[in-house]
């Protein structure tokens, strides 16, 4: 439909991360980390001292930056800013909830799957009762 093209086709976009130290280290080792000219990184390491406000700010910054296509966020961090994650409805960047070492993946809290809970039967993934 003309006039509704919000999908950006970019040739090189980054992957942002908001996760605990180990997960971020692993991904940085793989080569996902980026520091731009203003010494801004595309990842945020969340530990017990990080405030919710800092996480919110980082989330907002990552989702408004033009060159970030995916935001990986640990599920327990996403739970801290659940309202922000749930009210986010743009297709790009894509918000992906990943499990962390101490918190295994919980489909019942995933923001995307919970939206289609009604499409599933009671014994499926999103209902959290497997």
């Amino acid at each position, binding site marked *: 439909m003309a006039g509704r093209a919000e999908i950006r086709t970019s040739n090189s976009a980054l992957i942002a991360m908001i996760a605990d130290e*180990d997960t971020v280290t*692993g991904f940085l080792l793989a*080569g996902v980390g980026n520091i731009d000219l203003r010494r801004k990184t595309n990842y945020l390491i969340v530990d017990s001292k990080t405030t919710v406000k800092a996480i919110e700010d980082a989330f907002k910054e990552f989702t408004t930056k033009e060159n970030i296509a995916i935001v990986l966020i640990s599920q327990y961090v996403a739970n801290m800013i659940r309202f922000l994650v749930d009210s986010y409805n743009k297709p790009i960047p*894509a*918000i992906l909830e990943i499990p962390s070492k101490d918190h295994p993946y919980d489909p019942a809290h995933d923001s995307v799957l919970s939206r289609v809970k009604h499409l599933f039967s009671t014994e499926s993934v999103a209902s959290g009762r497997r």
Partner: protein
Amino acid sequence: MSGQSQRLTVVPTVTMLGVMKSRLVGATRGHALLKKKSDALTVQFRQILKKIVTTKESMGEVMKTSSFALTEAKYVAGENIKHIVLENVQNASLKVRSRQENVAGVKLPKFEYFTEGEIKNDLTGLARGGQQVQLCRAANIKAIELLVELASLQTSFLTLDEAIKTTNRRVNALENVVKPRLENTINYIKGELDELEREDFFRLKKIQGYKKREIERQLAAAKQFAEEQFAEKVSLQKGISLNLAHNLLSAGANKDEDIIF
């Protein structure tokens, strides 16, 4: 909803009837096409959903593997590996490219990841545990691959969801608002045209009736006039003027010698 089956305000002419009929045909065809599109999109939607569920499950496994690899690397190469990695961050070597794919008429975004430049690994694992570090890196790269695919699926999922909602909205609007309105307008125009025709017909009949009566009256009047004329002539011959004040000049000049002008 008030005014749900109102009609459009139009001048009830034959041309407008033709226009309304063609619009109704267009609306019906559009409704059928949109319904088909909505069904196709729903099929795609369900497929993607299934894929997402399976991918998310396997993602849990992959993340576990990668975090194991990291623990091993930490164990072998020492705890400082985190700091070394953090220091080494410069430009991302793993990036994603986003394209648009056309699925059943809807533009869906798709990510694919690619490596650009070389991975900066000058200092990591130089002291010890280089192999573990490499293994950890490989595991993490695999994890990233899977995550990129998952993100791609997720965005198509969300975009499809919106597209389905819009299409369904249009289908319902056509079905419940546009078509009834057009049908009501057509019925109204037909009714008005019929009434006009009936009016015309009635007027025609009335005028015919008038004309007929007029002719009859004239016939009767003419007949009576003719009869009176005849009666007058007859009575004049006998010397009596019957009620008629006929023209002395003309009638008398012909027969009466007393009248001299």
